[in-house]
């Protein structure tokens, strides 16, 4: 479980937001929606353990990412994947090389396993046979889907996606949404940063939106619960999110 407590951030001497609370449990898919330049990417970095918040703390599985051991922070990053807003494209870099890099991070895979898995994942995101295509020649949508496939290669337990649906484009949003919900059912914890929740998703969200700072938080998918626990669900739905001090 990823828990953010009263998290605040300052950028260029200006308080972007403070008092953001969030709790994303196993099998949950959260969308953090916010206007441009509201600090969504910054929040993502903070939640991933890559940038210390200016106030508050982030706790994963009961241990702080910033005040706990560096090894805990490293283990968390090893278990998490991140899809950036725009996949950097060095000249000449192919998709296969990105998967190779992901395989290096994962370790212990043979070339045969890597190739098979790469083919499966690329076909899952609609990029079949694009292994040797240069990243720089891909469209924004293709790059976003390719970056997503590269992260899925390592089967991360936690997944952070920055403007993924917006980059993937309207025609891919549904398919990617279904894929993300399927991943949540496989007990992955998914956090997405978007400008707004896609219209098609409004009906599917599990809880009413709550605001935290400049952000609106939506819990789109929750893990299946045993029938006897359902009564308690209503109580817990509101608990992961609280109002921000600024909000």
């Amino acid at each position, binding site marked *: 479980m990823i828990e953010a407590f009263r998290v605040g951030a300052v950028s260029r001497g200006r308080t972007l937001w403070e008092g953001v609370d969030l709790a994303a449990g196993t099998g949950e898919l959260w969308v953090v929606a916010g206007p441009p330049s509201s600090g969504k990417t910054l929040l993502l970095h903070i939640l991933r353990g890559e940038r210390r918040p200016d106030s508050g703390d982030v706790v994963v599985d009961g241990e702080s990412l910033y005040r706990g051991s560096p090894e805990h922070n490293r283990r968390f*990053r090893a278990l998490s994947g991140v899809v950036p807003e725009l996949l950097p494209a060095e000249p000449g870099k192919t998709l296969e090389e990105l998967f190779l890099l992901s395989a290096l*991070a994962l370790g212990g895979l043979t070339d045969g396993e890597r190739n098979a898995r790469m083919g499966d994942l690329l076909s899952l995101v609609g990029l079949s046979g694009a292994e040797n295509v240069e990243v720089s020649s891909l469209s924004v949508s293709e790059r976003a889907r390719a970056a997503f496939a590269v992260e899925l290669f390592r089967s991360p337990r936690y997944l952070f996606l920055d403007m993924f649906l917006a980059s993937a484009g309207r025609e891919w949003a549904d398919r990617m949404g279904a894929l993300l919900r399927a991943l949540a059912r496989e007990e992955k914890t998914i956090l997405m940063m978007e400008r707004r929740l896609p219209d098609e998703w409004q009906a599917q969200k599990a809880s009413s939106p709550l605001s935290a700072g400049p952000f609106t938080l939506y819990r789109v998918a929750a893990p299946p619960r045993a029938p006897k626990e359902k009564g308690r669900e209503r109580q817990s739905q509101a608990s992961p999110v609280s109002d921000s001090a600024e909000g």
Partner: protein
Amino acid sequence: MSGPSLWWIDWSLHRGPMRRETAGRFLLCFLAALYFLAMLLSGGVNRFLSGQYTISAILHVGVPDDEGTGIAGKVAALPPVLEAKYQDPEQAWAEFLAAYPGLESLRGEGENPLPGYVEVRLRPGWMTDEGIAEVRSALEPVSQVEKILTGGDVMRNLLRMKRWANALLWSGFALVCVVFLAFLVMQEKARATRLLPEVSFLASRGVPEGQIASMRTAGAVVAGGFVALLATGLACAALFLAARHLPLVRVTVGSAEELLDAKILLPACLFLLGAAMLQGLASLAGWRATIPKGR
């Protein structure tokens, strides 16, 4: 079939530039190995000098040939001596006439006025004052020896010049090594810079930078050792062929068969080890210069 490893991360991700850089590295390593082996075999100018210079022990007139041969045999057993050959009076006379034709009249009534002598050639490594002194001190007590010709002051000057020439040649090798090292560090900095985005990707996915650095360094030592082994092997082959077909190389550098001598093999192995370690250290230095600790 094995998968990618952090040991070969540069080769896995940047194969094209790595091939080109390794070709350049191989060429420099080959030149350094060729220079080093040639210096080991020749001892600088020692071999050339030992081929040109001999110590002559002139015997008294009338010393029998078997005694002259015996003296040559004993001198040949001395550590500094490569070869000691007895020349009987008739051979001495023939050499004299070859050098000064038309002086046959000096041999009145058929008697040979020249004595026999022992010609001593020193080993290349013993072309020193000490080597000459050791041969001289071994010959001086021998009663049959009338005079020992070692070159006198000319030889002392020649040995001094030899020391300077050798120092100059070894400085040349040191320069090749410095150029090799500078080339390595520049290459490794470029490699680390090229690898920055990938390192950043891996670090943000929980792969410790220290682990990447150490495994990459280990890979550089192994790959560097392999490059050095190939380059040294090629240098040996080049010396072998050159010594076989070019007399000048045979005279100044020596015979390639001597490469199998332990005196050459051991330093050659140390050269290989040094080249591999140097490449590993250069890899680490390039990494540290580009990717500071705790970035």
